[in-house]
C-alpha cells in the first residue's frame, strides 16, 4: 500500500470566460520529490494556488486530501498550519531585514508580546546549518545572491515545520552550481521525510531528483509517470507537454517575402541594476518585409529584454551591437529615435506599459504620434477623432464611441487600442510582445488577422509568444531563445513544438 500525503481530485477552477483547470488530478506520495511540468500557462501555478489556499475553498470544484483528511483552506495561513508551504518564483523576502528577522517574519518567537532575540538567533543558526548556508543570522537578506536567498526561503519553510514543500521554478534564476546545491538539499530533506513538489522546465533536474512526474497541459493533467517503474526519456515528457493537437486555428496567409527590413547583429545587453550580469549574448537576427518572425522561449529567457533594449534602450545598460533598418545603420538610442526609425513595440503588459487607462481611446490612439494630428503644437480634435474612429472600425474595437475610457474595455479591445496606437505611428517593423496574452479565443483570431494584414502590407513583424502553437500557426520563421541567447532557428516547414522544446531544454 502506497503512503499518499497529498491527493488532489478532479480540481476544476474557472475564471470569468476561461477554464483554467479542468478536472486535474495530482497524487504525491509521502517522502518523494514530485515534479510538475507543463508549458507556461498550462495551469501549474493555478493548481498550486488552489492547494495553498490563495484561491480559497469554495472558489474551485474538487477535493483535496492531505494525510487522508479532506481539507479546505481559506488562505495561505491555513495551509501553512498544516505544513504545506509554497516558495514562489519571485521570492517573498524583505531585503532590508536580516536573515533571522526574515525567517520568523509573521512567526516570531514571542514571549508576552516581546521578541526573544537570543532564541531567534540560535534557532536561525540551526536552520541555516540544516540548509547548508554559511552566513551570520544578522546579515541583511538583500546582500545575499539569489541562490542564497532561495536557501533562506527554504530555511523559512523549515522554521514552520514543513511537511510538503512546493517550489515554483526554484532554479530559473540560479547558476549551475547553485542549482546543484539546491537540488542536493531537496534530496537531503527527502531523506528527512519531507515531501516536495518541484515545478520546473529543466528536464535534466527532473531526471536527477524526481521520483514521479505529473504533466499538465491546457489546464488538464495529461499523465503521471513513475520514474522508478518506467524508463522515461526526455522526448516522452516533451511530447506530453506540448501535445499533438493544435488547439487554435489561425487565419491563412500567403507569405510574400521582400528585402531584409531589419538586421540586428552582435547585440549584447547587461542587466539594468547588476552590471556584471549579462542578459543578452550576441543576438543576431533579421526580419524581411512581409515576414512574421517568431521568438520562442520560456519566461525569463530574455525575449522581452531583447525587444525593450532594441526599442530605444528601454531596458538594460551598456547596450552594444548594431541594427540596420532597410540596410542603413539606425540610431535607436532613445524611444523617439526608435519610433522615427520605423520601429514599434507592443508591450506584453498593456495595462502597465501600453495604455493610459484613465484616458479615452482617442487619446491613447494618437499618443505615439501626436504631431501628425496637430499643427504648431495645437491638436486638431476633429482630425484626431477621425483617425481614432478609422482605427476603431478597421480593427473592430467594440465600444460605443472613441470617447470611452480604455479601462472600461475588455482585454481584447484594449489590445486593439494598443495596436491602433502603434499602427498610427507608421512603423516598418513591429515587435509584438505576447500580443494575445489574456484575451479570449475570438479576439485572438482577430489579432492574428491584423498581424497577417500587416505582413501583407509589407511590414516586418516580430512576434514574441509563450504559446508555441501560436508561433507555429503564424510565423514564417522562428528563432528559439534561451537564457539570453538565440539557440536555434527554424523555418515554418521544419518547426514543431517538439523541436522548439528540445532546443530549449537541451540548450
Amino acid at each position, binding site marked *: 500500500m502506497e503512503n499518499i500525503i497529498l491527493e488532489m481530485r478532479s480540481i476544476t477552477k474557472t475564471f*470569468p*470566460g476561461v477554464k483554467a483547470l479542468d478536472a486535474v488530478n495530482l497524487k504525491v506520495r509521502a517522502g518523494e520529490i514530485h515534479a510538475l511540468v507543463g508549458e507556461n500557462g498550462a495551469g501549474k501555478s493555478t493548481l498550486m494556488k488552489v492547494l495553498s489556499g490563495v484561491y480559497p475553498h469554495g472558489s474551485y470544484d474538487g477535493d483535496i486530501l492531505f494525510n487522508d483528511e479532506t481539507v479546505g483552506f481559506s488562505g495561505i495561513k491555513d495551509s501553512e498550519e498544516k505544513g504545506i508551504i509554497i516558495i514562489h518564483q519571485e521570492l517573498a523576502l524583505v531585503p532590508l531585514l536580516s536573515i533571522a528577522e526574515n525567517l520568523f517574519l509573521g512567526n516570531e518567537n514571542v514571549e508576552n508580546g516581546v521578541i526573544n532575540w537570543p532564541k531567534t538567533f540560535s534557532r536561525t543558526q540551526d536552520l541555516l546549518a540544516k540548509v547548508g548556508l554559511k552566513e551570520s543570522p544578522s546579515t541583511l537578506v538583500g546582500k545575499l545572491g539569489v541562490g542564497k536567498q532561495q536557501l533562506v526561503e527554504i530555511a523559512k519553510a523549515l522554521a514552520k515545520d514543513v511537511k510538503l514543500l512546493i517550489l515554483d521554478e526554484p532554479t530559473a534564476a540560479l547558476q549551475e552550481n547553485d542549482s546543484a546545491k539546491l537540488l542536493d538539499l531537496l534530496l537531503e530533506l527527502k531523506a528527512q521525510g519531507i515531501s516536495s513538489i518541484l515545478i520546473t522546465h529543466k528536464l535534466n533536474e527532473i531526471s536527477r531528483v524526481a521520483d514521479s512526474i505529473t504533466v499538465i497541459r491546457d489546464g488538464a493533467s495529461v499523465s503521471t509517470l513513475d520514474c522508478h517503474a518506467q524508463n522515461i526519456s526526455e522526448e516522452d515528457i516533451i511530447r506530453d507537454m506540448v501535445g499533438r493537437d493544435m488547439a487554435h486555428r489561425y487565419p491563412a496567409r500567403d507569405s510574400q517575402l521582400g528585402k531584409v527590413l531589419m538586421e540586428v547583429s552582435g547585440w549584447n545587453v547587461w542587466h539594468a541594476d547588476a552590471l556584471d550580469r549579462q542578459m543578452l549574448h550576441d543576438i543576431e537576427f533579421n526580419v524581411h518585409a512581409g515576414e512574421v518572425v517568431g521568438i520562442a522561449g520560456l519566461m525569463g529567457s530574455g525575449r522581452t529584454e531583447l525587444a525593450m533594449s532594441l*526599442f*530605444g534602450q*528601454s531596458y538594460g545598460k551598456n547596450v552594444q551591437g548594431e541594427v540596420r533598418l532597410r540596410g542603413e545603420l539606425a540610431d535607436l538610442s532613445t*524611444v*523617439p529615435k*526608435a*519610433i522615427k526609425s520605423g520601429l514599434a*513595440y507592443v*508591450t506584453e503588459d498593456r495595462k*502597465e*506599459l*501600453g*495604455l*493610459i*487607462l*484613465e*484616458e479615452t481611446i482617442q*487619446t491613447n490612439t494618437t*499618443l*505615439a504620434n*501626436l*504631431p501628425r494630428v*496637430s499643427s504648431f*503644437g*495645437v*491638436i486638431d*480634435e*476633429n482630425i484626431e*477623432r477621425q483617425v481614432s474612429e478609422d482605427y476603431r472600425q478597421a480593427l473592430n474595437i467594440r*465600444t*460605443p*464611441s472613441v*470617447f*470611452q475610457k480604455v479601462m*472600461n*474595455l*475588455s*482585454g481584447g479591445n484594449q489590445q486593439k487600442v494598443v495596436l491602433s*496606437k502603434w499602427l498610427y*505611428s507608421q512603423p516598418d517593423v513591429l515587435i509584438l510582445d505576447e500580443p494575445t496574452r489574456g484575451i479570449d479565443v475570438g479576439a485572438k483570431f482577430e489579432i492574428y488577422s491584423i498581424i497577417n494584414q500587416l505582413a501583407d502590407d509589407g511590414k516586418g513583424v516580430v512576434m514574441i509568444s509563450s504559446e508555441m502553437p501560436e508561433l507555429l500557426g503564424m510565423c514564417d520563421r522562428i528563432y528559439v531563445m534561451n537564457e539570453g541567447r538565440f539557440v536555434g532557428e527554424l523555418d515554418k516547414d521544419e518547426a514543431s513544438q517538439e523541436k522548439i522544446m528540445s532546443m530549449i531544454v537541451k540548450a
Partner: protein
Amino acid sequence: MATTKDTSTAVQAAPSVTSYLKSHMRDYGMLIALVVIMGMFQFLTDGILMRPVNLTNLFLQNSYIIIMAIGMLLVIVAGHIDLSVGSVAGFIGALAAVMAVNYNLPTIIVVPVCLLVGLIIGGIQGYWIAYWKIPAFIVTLAGMLVFRGLTLTLLEGQSIGPFPESFQLLSTGFIPDVFGAGRPNITALVLGVLAASAIVFLAARSRARALKYGIQDEPFAFFIAKNALITIAIIYLSYMLSTYRGLPNVLITMAVLIAIYTFITNSTTIGRRIYALGGNVKAAKLSGINTERLTFLTFANMGMLAALAGLIFAARLNTATPKAGFAFELDVIAAVFIGGASMTGGVGKVIGAVIGAFIMGVMNNGMSILGIGIDWQQVIKGLVLLAAVIFDVYNKQKAR
C-alpha cells in the same frame, strides 16, 4: 471580461437633466459647492459678501493663490508636488523690493527679471526632479527652506517698501474707463459682456461640432441653463465691479492666464503629454514622450507663476516682508485637490483648480466678515478639504 462595464447606454439614449447631472457629479460638484457656499455667506453676512468693494477685494486677495494654483495643477497632473511655491513667491517679492526700492530700477526691468529668476528657480528644482529622479517632495521641501532663508537674507530681516507707483499697478491698478470717467464703469460692463459672449460662442461651437459627430450627451436644456447661468454670473459680476472702481488689472491677468492654460491643457500636444505622463509614466515613455523634459518644463513654469504671484502679493501689500508667502503652498495645493485633481496624477482641470481656489477664498473672506477667529477658520478649511476629496473618491468609486 466580466469586469467590463457597458456604459454605452449613457451615450446613446438622450438622458434627462437630472441623470446627466448625476453622472457628471464629479465635473459640476465643486461648482455647485462654490455657489452654495457663496449663497450661504451672502445670507450669513447680510449681503456684505457680494458688495462691490468686497467682491473687488475677493479677487485681489485670492489672485496670487489662483495664479499659483494654475501652475500647481500642471505639477500635480504630472504626478508631482511643489512645496516651495510660497517661499519662492516671498523671495521674488523681496528681490523686487531690493531692485525697485533700494536700487531704484524701473518696473519695466524689475518685472521681467523677477519672472526670469522664478523660471530659473523652478527649472533648477525641476532638473533634480526630472533628470535625477529625486522625489519632488524632497527637492521642493528643500527649496521651501532655502528660499525662506534667502528671503530673510535679502531683506536683512526688515520690511522694504513702499514700491514705486508703477509697480503697485500690478495689483491695485484698475482698467481705466475709456468711455469717460464715472460710475458705473462702462469699460468693465463692455468687457464683461464680451467675455460672456465669447464663452457662449465657444460653447455653442463645440456643442455643434460634437452634435455633428453624434457624441453629445449633454441635454439641450442643461446646455441652455448652464450657459445662461454663466452669462448672468459674469455680467452681474462685471456690473457689480463697475459700480466700484471697475475691473482690477489682476482680474484681467488672471482671466488671461486661465484662458491660456485651459487652452494648453485641452488642446496642445504639450498639455496632452503632461496628462499622459501623469496617467502612466511608463506607457508615456514607451510612446516616445520625453517625460524628463516635460517634468522639467512643468516645474520651470511653476517657478515663473510663483514669481508672478510673489510680485502681485508684494505690490498689494506695498512692501516686501520676510513673512510674505508663508504657508501659501498649503492653500494652493488644497485648492487644486478641492478642484478635483487626483493625488496620483493624470486627472485635473485648470478651471477646477480655479474653482477650488475660490472656494477657499470665499470661505476665508466670509468667515473673516463674520468675525470667526483664525483658529476655527483653519479647522473649517481643513474639514472642507477632506470632505471635497472624500466626495471625489466616492464619486469615482460609484462610477466604476
